[in-house]
């Protein structure tokens, strides 16, 4: 099977994730979409790894998963804290850092 298919799927998932990040207002969903983007990248890495016949890409994919896990931990923690403090869970409302 040609690598192009793998890349096409990867690009599709990445586009869905990116679209979700831009469109959604709930931070939980944005986090999910981020995961989609990361995993799209993982798919591309592994596909290329298969194509070249080396393990480098797979190692990268593993590292990305670790990073993703960390990121989710932190992100979910923040979201839970927002719930607890009764801050509106809506990224459009959270704009205190504007210039």
């Amino acid at each position, binding site marked *: 099977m040609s690598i192009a298919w793998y890349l096409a799927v990867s690009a599709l998932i990445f586009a869905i994730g990116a679209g979700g*990040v831009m469109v959604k*207002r709930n931070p939980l969903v*944005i986090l999910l979409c981020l995961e989609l983007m990361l995993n799209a990248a993982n798919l591309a890495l592994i596909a290329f790894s298969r194509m070249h016949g080396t393990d480098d890409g797979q190692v990268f994919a593993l590292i990305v998963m670790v990073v993703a896990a960390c990121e989710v931990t932190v992100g979910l923690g923040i979201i839970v804290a927002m719930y607890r403090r009764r801050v509106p869970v809506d*990224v459009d409302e*959270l*704009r205190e850092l*504007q*210039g």
Partner: protein
Amino acid sequence: MTSVKTFAWLTLLFPLAGCIVNALGYRVLRGKLPGYVGTGVLFASFVSAVLMLFALQDLGEEERHVRAVAWDYMSTVGFDGELALLIDPLSTFMTVTITGVSALIHLYSVAYMGGDRGYARFFSYLNFFVFSMLLLILAGNFLFLIVGWAFVGAASYLLISFWFRRDTATAAGIKAFVINVLGDVGLVLGTFFIFKGTGTLDYLATFEKAGEIAQGDVTAGCILLLVGAFAKSAQIPLHTWLADAMEGPTPVSALIHAATMVTAGVYLIARMWPLFEQSSSAAAVGAIVGCLTLFVSATIGLVVTDLKRIIAYSTMSQIGYMIMAVSSGAYVAGIFHFYTHAFFKALLFMAAGSVIAAMAGVQDIDKMRGFRGAMPFTFGCFVVGGLSLAGVPPFAGFFSKDEVLAYVADRGDWHVALVVVGYVTAFITALYTFRLIFRVFFGEPSPEARELEEGHLHHADVPRNPVTGDEEDTDVGFPGPEHHIAEREGPMKVAMGLLALAAIVAGWLQIPNVTHALEEFLHPTFAESRYFEELHPSDGLTFGGMAIGALAAIGGIALAYLIWMRRPEIAVRMRERFRPLHTLFVNKWYADEALDRLFVRPAQWFGRFAQQTFERIVVDGLFVGGPAGLVRAGSAAVRSRQSGFLRAYAALMLLGLAGVVLWLLLSS
């Protein structure tokens, strides 16, 4: 040779040791011990100085220029800074006089400062002062002259501001220090000019090459040295600090005004005679300024009413005589006057201190009367000092003052005018000295004098500043509640008694046609001087001058007796008649105001300009404000892009990423 050097170092180091012991051991040294330590080292220093004098006399006349080098301080190409002393008759004579008088002043202070809470600190400063002065005198090159010169200025600041609770005292200390630093700058710059021509800092080498310096350089150098001398010796126009320096304790006034500090300028000119003889214009400046000062300060002394300030102005006046003498080539006469003046002026200050103590700190002579009966010893000392200051034969001041005037007159030309002013001032000197004596000691006793006659020393209910009259803080740094008068304190009595004796006999060292002890002694120092060889007043000039001097002194005393004893209304009438003159004198010829207008205010104006205009507009506006404004404007532009919408940021990021990817694809 070696013994001379040893004694010189010992003389110098004893006061330093005393200073360090008192400074570090103030917790351990109890009671009067710091005073006795301070006095003891000074007496040791005096003994060592006398031994140095004897050892120097044992050398041949040609060898009496001993250089004692401890080590090379900095030695590099064309520069020879050594820690060196020069021991010759001039420096030895000054050293002996200074250590002797200073030792007695220390002894006086043991009792006089007895009630002060800064007792150890006082003696530490006092010892440091004497050490600095000895360093100045004994220094063998310009480098250590400058060091000693600056040390003396610093020590005078410490001592004048000794009672630091008094704002007036700290202000006076700052004033003295600032003016002295002005003199330091003059001295340093003058040294540069001399060094430029000779390439050496050492005195003896400099003097040998004095003739090789370019005329312009030697004149500029000497004038700048004179600036230093004028600042230290309180000559016009740098004299205003001296009267304010009376804010210090009385022994300090005695120390600064009698033997040390103010005579540094006299010493400097006498020491630098080979340079001043190369530059007649610089010497003329010195002589004229000295003459001006001796007259102006005598007129001020005639009208001010602060006991210590009157004596301070008389000091300025007498220093004027010395400066005039040494600038006119009458070196021996100038040094002779320094020597007699040291005794009678220290005596006058001590006696004044005793009177001020009896008045519980008040210094205004308008409030003093009739202390003669209450304080016979002080009165006697004051009269002896006064007669010597006025120049009544056979007291010390008579011989020295008349020698100064005779030698200056022998220069001829315009120097004769200086001598005329000198004699007029001698008359005024007698007048103001005895004005002081008649007003303080004669007449109906004041309440304080009455109290003392009944055996009780007056104490003020509330401590007040003698100048401003404000109530004072009585913490450390303020004269203690106790006062000490000479009649009741042994050390004060001994010190004053010895000085009174010296004020009578000191002048007999050099009586025309009888003895020339001092001239012979100083011969090795001035042997090659043109004026030292040339100036020999004829008998007519000498004895005529003496007659005029004696008449001026006695006439002044008689007039003072008439005005302030017989018919006090004359003084009032004179004051009314010569109102403008009186105002001029009371305001010290407006010297403070003139300096204020000429230097202080322009400096303040410039400071304000620098701060308000230059700093605000150029520095703050241009250098600081310019870049800051740029950054601020730039950041304002960028900041408006920060909307806070997370999704917008994400979109922008993606857009940017897409752009980068697109660019990479297209360019590959």
